[in-house]
Each structure stands twice: as C-alpha cells, then as structure tokens.
C-alpha cells in the first residue's frame, strides 16, 4: 500500500476519492492477509463502512470532516472505545465494553479518521513480541515466521500490512518504537504529557504514552498533531496546545548538532548491521549539514534495571482493580479473597503475573528503598545525564532495537533476553522525553537460513522533553536518506 494518510485526507476532503473506496481497499488487504498476520483482536468493518458513508455524506454536504478525513486507523486494544470490547489481550477483561472513549480515540474520530479495528498486543502491553497475547501472537507481515515486536505489534503490523493507513499504540518502554522498527514503519513515543493518557488502560502510569504509527514521518507528524495537546482529564497532560510539526518538517538539519549515544550503539548484543545503519544515518545527516558526534550518556546503561522495578511496581498497583468485583472475568470462590485470587489466577497470563509479583515485591515494606527508591534515583540520574547531553546536542541517535525481527518463540523461554530488546528505548520513557523510530535500510537476521528476506532496521531519534519539532525534522531527513528510498 502506498497511500499516505496526508494524501488520503487531501483526496477525501477535496472529493477526489470517497472514504468508502479508501476503506474498501484497506478491508481487501485485511481480507487477504489478516488470517496470517493476526493484527486484530477485533476488526470493525461494519462500523467502519457506516462511518465512511458519514464522511462521504459530510463532504457531499460541503462540510470538512477534518485533517484525517477518511483515513483508516487501527487502535491498540488497550485504548478504550465506547461500546466496543477493549481487552488488553487479556482474559481478565473478557466481555468488558468501556462506557467511554479514550481522549485520543475521540480526537482521531473528530478529525475524520475511520477505525478499522482493535489491534493485538502483549497482554497489558507487557512484552516485546506480541507473543504474550491471550488471543495468540501477531506475525510480522515482512516475514510471517518472525515477530512484529511489541507490545504494540498488532498496530505496527496493521500499518505495515496496509490494513490501516495509520495506527495508535502505547509506549511504556519502547512498545511503539520497537515494533515500528521491526515492521519497517515509523513509530513515535511523544514527550510524557504531550498526549492524553485518559482512556489508555494503564500499565505503568509514569512511563505510558500513546504514540502514532505511520508509513511516513509526515503521516506520523499529522497524527501526533491530531492527538496531542492538553486534556483536562489527564492531570499529567502538558497544559499547552500540540505544537505544529508538519509546518517545519522539510526545514532540513543544517546546523543541527546530533549525538550518537555510545552506550546504546556500541554495546554487546547490537547486531553489526544495525549499528552500521545508525552510523550511515548519521553520516547522511552530516551530509545534509548537521554536525554529528559520538556522546556518552553513561547512566542509560542502568535504564533497563531501573525500568524493571518502576514499571512492575506501578503495574502491580494499576492491575489490582481486576478483582472480579465490578467487570470482566469473575471466577467464584468461597469468599471474596478466594474469588479475587481465582479470578486473577485464571485471568492473567504468565508475564503479567511475573511483573505483578516483581512489582509487589519491589514496593513491599523493608524493600522499597533498596528497589523502588533506588530505581527512582537511577531515573533522576538518567534525566541529568540526558540534560547534560542536550546542552551539546539538539537530538541524539541510537538503534531502536538491537536486532531486526526475531523468530516466534526465539525468546519466550528467557524473559531476560526478551527484556533486552528494549535496552535502547527505555531511557526515553524513564526521562519522559520524546523519541521515535524511522526505518533506515534492511539487513538479514544474524545466522538466517538462505531464503530469509532482508528485514527492516529502525534508527531511533531521541529528543528532550518538548523536542518533537526538531526530532521530526531529523527523522524526515533520515527518511529521505534511507537506502530503501524516501516517501515524499
């Protein structure tokens, strides 16, 4: 599919194409490949057709449906949609239909987008491969034997497979950027507070952020402009309107100072082709007038350890409410405590249970300071280190994921290996900063059998809080220099 959201919206608004036609093209893709890919927990074709007709009727009346007019969008299934099942890919939310829409869902709808379905994820967004779903894994559209990354693997795959033009995911430790990287699409983790979390089912509240998937940097900018900006329903939302991103997108990188983060690029476990891609992207930026240099941000090495205390700690509290009392699954017991325990035992998968236990332990009396407290101090250290780096640099570069997409089942036996997937993405979540992944070239997986297709590599652009404008300009320059050719 080569349809950008910008083009679709422009055509639909101008009456050159009908939203219904655009939708049918995407539904045809879904019909052709969804059985293999399994990007969706629920496809909402009927609702989508109705909505497309409304958009077309609006255009016919002379109304403007908005900047996403007729653009098919996929929503990660941890975003609340009124009256439409929202599962977090967990048995525990079985049967639950939210009575309200998430703020981001309201905003994309109000902008004229058409929801085509709710996408698969690692249960409660805990994972890096979308294999931890109660409803089965999603496969990478580029190679069905491989994972799409996670936790927003369904959204990444939906865009990569042309099931939707754009998609929304959530990024707690890399859950948008890493699957974007593995599926060869653009994925953004906005500054903490730039996008409302109201209606995003919480995993780790101080780290979660809703972010866009798109086929191009410009489409990602368009979608972020639509969903960003203050929301009075989210106390942690930045009290300012969303900054314009598209206007400056083509301004280039001349004079910008760009640092390559040593600790995230040179470490063990980074696939050499991936490292080479980051260096190639950097030299392309230098060619475009940027000043590039290597920089050490030492404390990022401790990001993973801090993250695996803070995120589970918050999760252990956020997921307490799934107790069988009010909604979702209930497994009866002799008394309320037994009902709680049985419900949670039956409703949560292994990874969720592992993290709840980890987090409960990290917060418990006598251990709080050594674990949660210490992790928060590391977090402060990372923020300070980044601040120092951003005194010298406008943005930073690193790989998004240490490797290209891996095979299904390759890392499920060893949680720690799986966790290492997010080593490059986690620091931005801990710091509350912006970061995004842009496709840049391809590589064969290490030790791949013959006949394996080359798989996409993602380069990560990291920016300070509220640094989205410059970050997008750099991402656009990388996109234009990409060996695979640029989308204009």
């Amino acid at each position, binding site marked *: 599919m080569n349809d950008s959201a910008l083009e679709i919206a422009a055509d639909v608004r101008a009456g050159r194409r009908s939203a219904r036609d655009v939708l049918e093209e995407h539904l045809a893709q879904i019909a052709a490949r969804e059985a293999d890919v399994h990007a969706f927990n629920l496809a909402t074709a009927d609702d989508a057709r109705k909505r497309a007709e409304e958009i077309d009727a609006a255009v016919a009346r002379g109304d403007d449906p908005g900047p996403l007019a007729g653009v098919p969008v996929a929503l990660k299934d*941890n*975003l*609340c949609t009124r009256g439409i099942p*929202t599962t*977090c890919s967990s048995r525990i*939310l079985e049967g*639950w239909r*939210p*009575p*309200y829409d*998430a703020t981001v869902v309201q905003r994309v709808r109000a902008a004229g987008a058409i929801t085509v379905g709710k996408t698969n994820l690692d249960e409660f967004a805990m994972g890096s491969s979308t294999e931890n779903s109660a409803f089965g894994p999603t496969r990478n559209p580029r190679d069905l034997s491989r994972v799409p990354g996670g936790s927003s693997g369904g959204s990444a795959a939906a865009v990569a497979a042309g099931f939707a033009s754009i998609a929304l995911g959530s990024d707690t430790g890399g859950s948008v950027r890493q699957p974007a990287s593995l599926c060869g699409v653009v994925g953004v983790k906005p500054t903490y507070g730039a996008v409302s*979390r*109201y*209606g*995003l*089912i*919480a995993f*780790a*509240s*101080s780290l979660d952020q809703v972010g866009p998937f798109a086929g191009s940097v410009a489409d990602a900018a368009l979608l972020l402009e639509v969903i960003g900006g203050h929301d*009075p*329903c*989210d*106390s*942690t939302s930045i009290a300012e309107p969303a900054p314009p991103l598209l206007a400056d997108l083509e301004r280039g990188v001349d004079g910008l100072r760009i640092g390559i983060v040593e600790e995230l690029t040179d470490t063990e476990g980074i696939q050499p082709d991936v490292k080479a891609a980051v260096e190639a992207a950097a030299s392309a930026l230098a060619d475009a007038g940027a000043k590039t240099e290597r920089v050490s941000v030492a404390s990022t090495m401790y990001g993973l350890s801090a993250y695996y205390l803070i995120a589970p*700690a*918050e999760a*252990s*509290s956020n997921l*307490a*409410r799934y*107790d069988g*009392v*009010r*909604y979702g699954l209930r497994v009866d017991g002799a*008394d*309320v*405590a037994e009902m*709680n325990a049985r419900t949670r035992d039956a409703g949560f998968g292994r990874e969720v249970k592992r993290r709840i236990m980890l987090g*409960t332990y990290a*917060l*418990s*009396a006598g251990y*709080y300071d050594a674990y*949660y407290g210490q992790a928060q101090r590391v977090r402060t250290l990372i923020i300070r280190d980044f601040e120092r780096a951003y005194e010298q640099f406008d943005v930073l570069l690193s790989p998004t994921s240490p490797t290209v997409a891996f095979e299904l089942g390759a890392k499920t036996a060893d949680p720690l290996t799986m966790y290492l997937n997010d080593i490059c993405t986690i620091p931005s979540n801990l710091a509350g900063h912006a970061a995004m992944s842009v496709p840049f070239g391809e590589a064969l997986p290490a030790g791949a059998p013959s006949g394996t297709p080359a798989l996409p590599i993602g380069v990560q652009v990291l920016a300070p809080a509220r640094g989205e404008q410059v970050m997008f300009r750099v991402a656009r320059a990388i996109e234009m220099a990409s060996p695979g050719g640029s989308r204009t």
Partner: protein
Amino acid sequence: MTATTARAWETVIGLEVHCELATSSKLFCGCANQFGDEPNTHVCPVCLGLPGSLPVLNERAVEYALRVAEALHLRVPERSIFSRKNYFYPDMPKDYQTSQYDEPITIDGWLDIDGVRVGITRAHLEEDTGKSLHVGGGGRIHDADHSLVDYNRAGVPLLEIVSEPDIRSAEQAKRYVEELRATLLAVGVSDVKMEEGSLRIDANVSVRPAGTTEFGTRAEIKNLNSLRSLLRAVDYETARQSALIEAGERVVQETRHWDEDGGRTISGRSKEEAHDYRYFPEPDLVPVAPTDEMRARVRSTMPELPAARRARLIESWGIKDEDARVLVDVPGLADYAERAVAALKTGTARDVANWVRQDVLAYLNDRGLTAAVLAPEMLAELVALVTDGTISRGQAKDVLAESMAEEKWPRDIVGERGLAQVSDAGELGAVVDAVLDANAAAVGEYRTAEDDKARQKKRGFLMGQVMRELKGKGNAQVVNELLDARLS
C-alpha cells in the same frame, strides 16, 4: 474496673478524625458529593476506577484543607503529593486508595481544649471508599451470602486529621472532637454529622502507670460512630489494657473494632488485615502546590473561630461558659442568636441567649431542624414583648412555640389570642378599688385576721377577684403592688 485501677493508670489517646468535606463534587471527578441517594447513581469511570480512567484533583477540596489549616494552626508545605495505599477490598474501586502519605498537605498544628493544647500531627486529603452491604450470614464480609456495594461514596473527599497522643481521658477525647467539630463547622468545610458518617473517628489508646512518661503499646479502635461510643470505648480499653498488664500479660498492638451492642472492643486481627500497604507516590497526579493567591483568599475569608466566639459572647452578653458552648457548638445556633440580638429593640442579649439555649434548642431538637429555618427577628420581638411587660414569661413560651411552628410574628399571636397584659397602674388601680369596695367584708376580715395564714388567705381571695375582673390580663406584679398599697 476498680477505682484503684483508674487512679493507678493513665490513659494516652491520639485521635484520627476522618471528615467528609462538603464540596459539591467528589475529590477526583465531577460526580455529585451527595449522601443518601439511590445506590450507584453518582458514579462515573473515574470514581468506579474503570480501566483507563484518571483522577483530576478537585481544587475546592484543597481550599477546604487550607481553611482547616488556618483554623488548626497547621503549616502548609510548599508542595505535597498523593500516594497510593494498596489493599484489596470490594468497596474500593481501584483496590488502592489515593491518599497522602509522607508529604501531606498540612502538618504540625494544634487545637486548645479547656486550656489543654492538643498537638495535631497532620491533616491530609484522601478519597473515601464505597459502602458495602453484606447480605446473609453474620452480616460481615467473611460470612455473608453475598455482598452489595454502593459506590456513591467512593471518591468523596476526606480530610484525615491526626492528633498527637496528647489526650489523657475519655472526656477530654470527647471535648477534643466537640471542639474540632465546631471548628470544622465554623470554617464551612463539612456538615460534621457523625450519625451520617461525615465525621468518623479512630482512637489510638494505650495506658501507662500514672506519673510515667513512656508510652504503652496502643490499640487502634475503629468504628466509633458517636461521641458516646468514643467515651465508652476509651473507658473500656483503659480497663482492658490495665487489667492485662496487672495480670502480667502484654497489650498487643492491633486494630480493634468497637462493638456498640456488646459494649466492648473486639480484636480485628485477621489475614485480610495483616496489611503491607506498599505506599508509593501516585503517578497519575501532580504535586499540590497551593498558590499564594489561594492562601490569601482563604485567609481573608476565615470566620471567627469557636473559641474566640465563645469568649466574645461570654464577655459581651454576660452568659455562662456552658451556655456559650451550646450556642457555638450547635450548628447555626449562635448565628441565629446573634441576629436576634442585632434585631432586638427592648431586652438584653442574655435574655435572647436564654430563650435560644432552652426553648428554641428544644424545639429544634424535637423536630430535627437547624436554626437556619427560624427568623431571628421573631425571637427579638418576643423578648421585647416580655421585657416591656406585654406578656408574661409563661405566656411567652406558648407564643414562641406558635411563632416558630407557624412562622408568625409574636405580636400578631398576642393580638389574636388577646393576651396583652394590662400594666397601666391607673387602669389597674381603678379595678382594684372597685373590687375592694365590692368585697368590703373580706377586706375587713383581712385586716382583723388573727394570724398570717388567715391574712394571706384573704389576700389571695382578693387578688383572685381582681384578676378575674381583668380576665387574667393584669400584670401580676403591678396588681400585687397596688393591692399591698391599698391594704396596708
């Protein structure tokens, strides 16, 4: 227990008072803060803790906390934070309570009661839970057939006011609560109705040998729903703990429940209550930092506090301490009395206070009303009618009762009933003379009576004749004086 015990042991008490703030909406959402409606009618995704919902702090609750801080001499740190108190309970929608822990909104204050200064450790904001109704079995969660939960109360703002262990007797504890209640009422933050649960008390009670300074092991007594329960529970605990120690046993630090019917405290230890609350900072809310403007606004709207008001009324009205306490402690009573005094044409403030303290209060208590329903100008008129002798005190009681019940002016009632007394000496003198003339025999017998008793009998007869002639409206005092003058 025995009198010896009471003398040998000193009780040490610290109180935790939970006060429901009378804001119009809940602490973290826009739902009405209303008592006693149909269950689950004031609920929304936020106060039901639905997945994806987020809290937004009600600024009015912060302002109310600041009002209490002014009244209780509490310090307001530049910033405070909310924390999550994690434990499972069906009436708590999120299975954690959003409360304040190590950085509360106010700290270090005091309240004087009868010349004793009780330190106040802190007063912090937190959300209330829902209300469980356990059906069948013993009516407790452990043995009920099933339980129902009303979440109307979930999320109602509470201010928990924690005293230092400065209280030394049950009576003093009661006085502390009375004074606190009057203060909270005066500053307008709560309706402080213990019977409706808008003021709830937990008491930390320990005993120690009189004259020692070290604290004993305390028990925390919960479920004290009235001042009477507080008095009884503290006395019971004092006796229980001192008896334990005298028997060579140890007091266990634990939570105990007051059993009103049994007149005893019961150990609340059970598996469910062996809590590790795993407090950690609430990531969904930002720190509370009251602005100077807000603090100034609070200061400029502080009313006179109960202690100052009592002192002023005692001084300027010449009333007793006890009367001043009743006027100030009963909601609305002092306001009513002061407005009546302001409207008073003839008579003293003390007369007004006496009527309010007795007849008015009795009337209100009988009907469960507050003084707000009464017109103070009517009382002022009544006092004037008594003072100028138009009606007697005895008549005034009836007139006041009718005035309050029918909302009628006392002068109109006097007119309708034809009650006005005749006090004019000239008019009364003529009647007295006529009666003495008509009863010359009796006058003679009076003058020649052998003893005082016989004389008084004749005088009473003559008095009766005069009053009969006046149809009971003669001012008895004036008639007596006239009669004495004529008969002497």
